[in-house]
């Protein structure tokens, strides 16, 4: 049997393709540098550090799986994982639902639409630290407006941010206040729903709920996927609000993953330990994204594809 060896890549390509390849790589070279230096290298370095004990000042000391075992034994770590999962499971769908709900309302052909859109969008563009400080005041137990309103309604005032049970729901409530960005994404997606589908539904006698369920929602499933995905990624990065408002308290009830990672790295200089945390997060994110995308084939409907 004669086996033909294929010519090396550069010779196999036509001159035009070769030129295209070189040009293409040239244009994307800034990003390539970023990929190598700021993404791939840190990722691999992080993996290496996770098997060491490293405080930057002294050289890394190999410790094998000690960090990972330590994580599993660490009760604060477990609490952190629980908190982040809590936020993901309750907070992210709530944000998507709220944004979707607002967008559907605004899409109804009402007047003052852009005014309402601005009103709902505004809270999501102010700096998170400013919003966090503002909410610190609103939820202030003795003098804050929220508790004052509660008292006026005859309800007991709540220790919102210092209560073990209330602190996470409170943080989720605050994040709902900022779901304007999700709303805008759904507003755009809703514009794409072909009018003739609504007309057909109306002819068939559909009421608003049936219309929503059988026309609107299926068409916007790509936007739902997008917002769920980006919302979940943000949930993994959820840092500013709890750090500014509660510093993780009370008793780690509002310590989320990024905060604990940050503390380990920059307060206790346990770079190895926090790198282990980072890699656990990386694996979880990859698995989660794969699951979400994999499942999406079953429930996402792309209207513009054949």
């Amino acid at each position, binding site marked *: 049997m004669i086996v033909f060896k294929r010519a090396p890549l550069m010779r196999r390509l036509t001159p035009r393709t070769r030129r295209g390849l070189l040009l*293409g790589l040239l244009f994307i070279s800034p990003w390539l540098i970023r990929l190598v230096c700021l993404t791939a290298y840190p990722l691999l370095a992080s993996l290496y550090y996770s098997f060491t004990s490293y405080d930057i000042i002294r050289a890394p000391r190999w410790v094998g799986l000690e960090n990972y075992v330590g994580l599993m034994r660490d009760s604060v770590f477990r609490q952190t994982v629980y908190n982040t999962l809590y936020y993901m499971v309750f907070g992210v769908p709530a944000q998507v639902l709220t944004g979707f709900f607002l967008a559907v309302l605004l899409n109804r052909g009402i007047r003052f639409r852009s005014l309402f859109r601005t009103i709902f969008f505004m809270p999501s563009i102010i700096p998170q630290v400013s919003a966090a400080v503002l909410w610190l005041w609103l939820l202030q137990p003795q003098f804050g407006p929220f508790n004052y309103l509660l008292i006026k309604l005859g309800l007991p005032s709540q220790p919102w941010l210092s209560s073990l049970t209330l602190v996470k729901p409170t943080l989720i409530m605050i994040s709902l206040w900022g779901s304007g960005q999700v709303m805008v994404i759904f507003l755009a997606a809703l514009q794409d729903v072909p009018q003739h589908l609504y007309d057909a539904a109306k002819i068939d006698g559909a009421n608003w709920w049936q219309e929503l369920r059988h026309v609107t929602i299926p068409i916007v499933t790509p936007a739902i996927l997008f917002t769920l995905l980006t919302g979940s990624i943000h949930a993994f990065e959820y840092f500013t609000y709890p750090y500014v408002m509660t510093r993780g308290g009370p008793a780690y009830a509002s310590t989320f993953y990024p905060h604990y990672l940050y503390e380990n790295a920059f307060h206790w200089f346990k770079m190895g330990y926090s790198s282990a945390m980072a890699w656990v997060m990386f694996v979880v994110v990859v698995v989660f994204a794969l699951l979400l995308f994999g499942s999406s084939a079953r429930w996402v409907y792309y209207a513009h594809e054949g």
Partner: protein
Amino acid sequence: MKQQQWKAEKYPVQEHISPLVRLWGRRPRGQATIQVVQKSIIYIILLTLGAISLLPFFWLVSTSLKSNQQIGAIPPQWIPNPPHWSNYPEAMAFVPVFRYIRNTVFIAAGRVTGVLISSTLVAYGFSRIRWPGRDVVFFIVLATMMLPYQVTMVPLYVLFTKLGWVGSYKPLIVPAFFGLPFFIFLLRQFFMTIPEELCDAARIDGCSEFGIFTRIILPLSKPALLAVALFEILWDWNDFIRPLIYINEMEKFTISLGLSLFSDQHHWQWGLLMAATTVSILPIVGFFFVAQRAFIEGITLTGMKG
């Protein structure tokens, strides 16, 4: 007899549209009541939610104009009388807000420049040049978009420590010159809507790829470039964790860091704190009002397909 041509434009019919019809729209007779009721409910919901959305801002400004006694007063005044304007100069004495704003603007300006230069080049390479493997590599760009910052945070910090950049603005500004996946994605989607014929015509006329890039693509992309700049500015104003780990000296603080520090040290002085928070929000809110349309268009550009 002269024939008079009846032109519709000469005889505009002034239809009297009652305000109620303006609000609720016209409907054929049988459906009138249901539609009116539906729309009324929607308006009520929107007004309620809109009020809830705006109320925190109202309380922000209201509290910022109260002295400590007025804050402690029960029931709290909705509009402080007399307004305690001195909160503002006092807050500025504690927090050099203008310096922090200047620092933040400096960082944002650097980053916007870097992002505009690099992301456009890279996006061009992914959209207007054909080369083998292009779309596979673009998929990698999308994948890196989903990486939470914490995954690479620690090794990046170690890298910047070894470079001696920690404590300066370099770790914040320099990476922007290597393309940001989100903007690469946005710009690529936008570039792909520019007709191929324009570029082909230029190529036939002997224009280099870079020439096509600067003379055809860029001028046509102004709305997308504007959206990119706006997003980056908004993001920089908001950024908390990066300045937190890389900036140590108080004079170099950004507005987020400064406000957070002030909140830590003086959180019982609510009037001053709210005044500082208001000042931190005002530039970005004003900015948003001016550039509203571009903002929303930008988000539309991204959420479309996902």
